[in-house]
């Protein structure tokens, strides 16, 4: 029986929790393309250079494919490739990075032509450690661009937080049918 597949993409800067978020939902061990990081400024041992892939089997011949993009800007060509024909896009931000709003703007620029019509949610991580910028400041950045998406503080180590992001994507998709 042909399987109905849906695709949800997790994007965002390095360390924002894309791989973790996918692992929270995937029924299979996620495929990862992590290699040793040579960028001393990144502060991570490994970095994703291809994509992350997971899959949630919904039963009834349906599944949701979960893709994670590489975080670093030099892989921006992968962002568009992976996001093509996605049911939804989740942008994860790490609020402890030096300039989270600038990070966010980078991804808004990269996906600029997709965003008016794609179902999208934004997860801001580690707001407990770094309360600034506020979640509302991210919403304001969207509003300046004429966009409105859910912006939620999340901990991607909590499955219910990741599910909430996905739910808001599904809600937007449902409203477009």
């Amino acid at each position, binding site marked *: 029986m042909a399987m*109905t597949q*849906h695709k949800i993409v997790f994007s965002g800067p390095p360390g924002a929790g894309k791989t973790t978020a996918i692992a929270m*939902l995937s029924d299979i061990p996620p495929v990862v393309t992590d290699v040793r990081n040579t960028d001393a400024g990144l502060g991570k041992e490994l970095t994703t250079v291809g994509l992350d892939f997971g899959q*949630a*089997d*919904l*039963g*009834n011949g*349906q599944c*949701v494919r979960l893709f994670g993009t590489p975080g670093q800007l030099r892989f921006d060509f992968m962002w568009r490739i992976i996001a093509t024909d996605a*049911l939804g896009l989740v942008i994860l931000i790490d609020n402890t990075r030096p300039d989270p709003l600038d990070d966010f703007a980078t991804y808004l620029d990269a996906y600029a032509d997709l965003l008016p*019509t*794609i*179902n999208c949610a934004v997860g801001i991580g580690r*707001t*407990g*450690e*770094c*309360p*600034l910028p*506020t*979640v*509302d400041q991210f*919403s*304001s950045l*969207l*509003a300046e661009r004429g966009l*409105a*998406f*859910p*912006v*939620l*503080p999340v*901990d991607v180590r909590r499955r219910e937080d990741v*599910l*909430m992001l*996905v*739910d*808001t994507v*599904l*809600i*937007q*998709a*449902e*409203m*477009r*049918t």
Partner: protein
Amino acid sequence: MSGEATTVSHVKRKLRLHLRNLSDHDLAKVNAFLRIGRERLQCDWSVVFDGEFDVLMLGLEEPGAVLGMTGGSPLATLCVADAGTGRNDAVESLARPLQYEALLDALSALENRFAAAPALHAVPRAFPPDARFRLLRWPSADLLQGDRDRQRLASFLLTRLVGLDELARLSHVDKPQCAEFLALLSTTGTLDVVAAVPEAPLASTAQANHPELDANHFASIRHGLGLTWR
């Protein structure tokens, strides 16, 4: 929503204050000041030590330091540091030794900031009977208060115009609760309200990305992911 006469009753909003890294002396002071200042404060403040909270009160040992912590998405953070150690202008600060007036002023300032969402038990604005709604921007964290129902309702209002009945049906949130939320949103200037034209197609500027998907599909996707909502 039918334009009936409405009464608005105000109930003191409850706010939860989470204290972390404070000495026993400071803890005792905060509790005492809250007790004494109860009548002066607009909201009903309670001290919590775990679980969800609205405002974090954090003791700092070094100027400008912010301790790492797990969990919690506070609406605001108050830092407590020794007097003269320098102020972290990025975060509201209180100097030690904690003073009653300073604490009450800080909490009052937060209450004024949060004042967009007083507790209401009725709709303050009468909408047309067939009104349809759409959000122009994502609501503030103050208004959403981390409430899952409100977050979901706001998501339903993002992509196209939707009426109250449809909103309640799709979200599985009680109609009065939907109405209350719409009323709150209407006070923020971010809600587009349109009176529907009878027999006109529902206005929508969104494109259907996946025309093969229908309500049953989304229900089964949610069920498969373990997204149980009511």
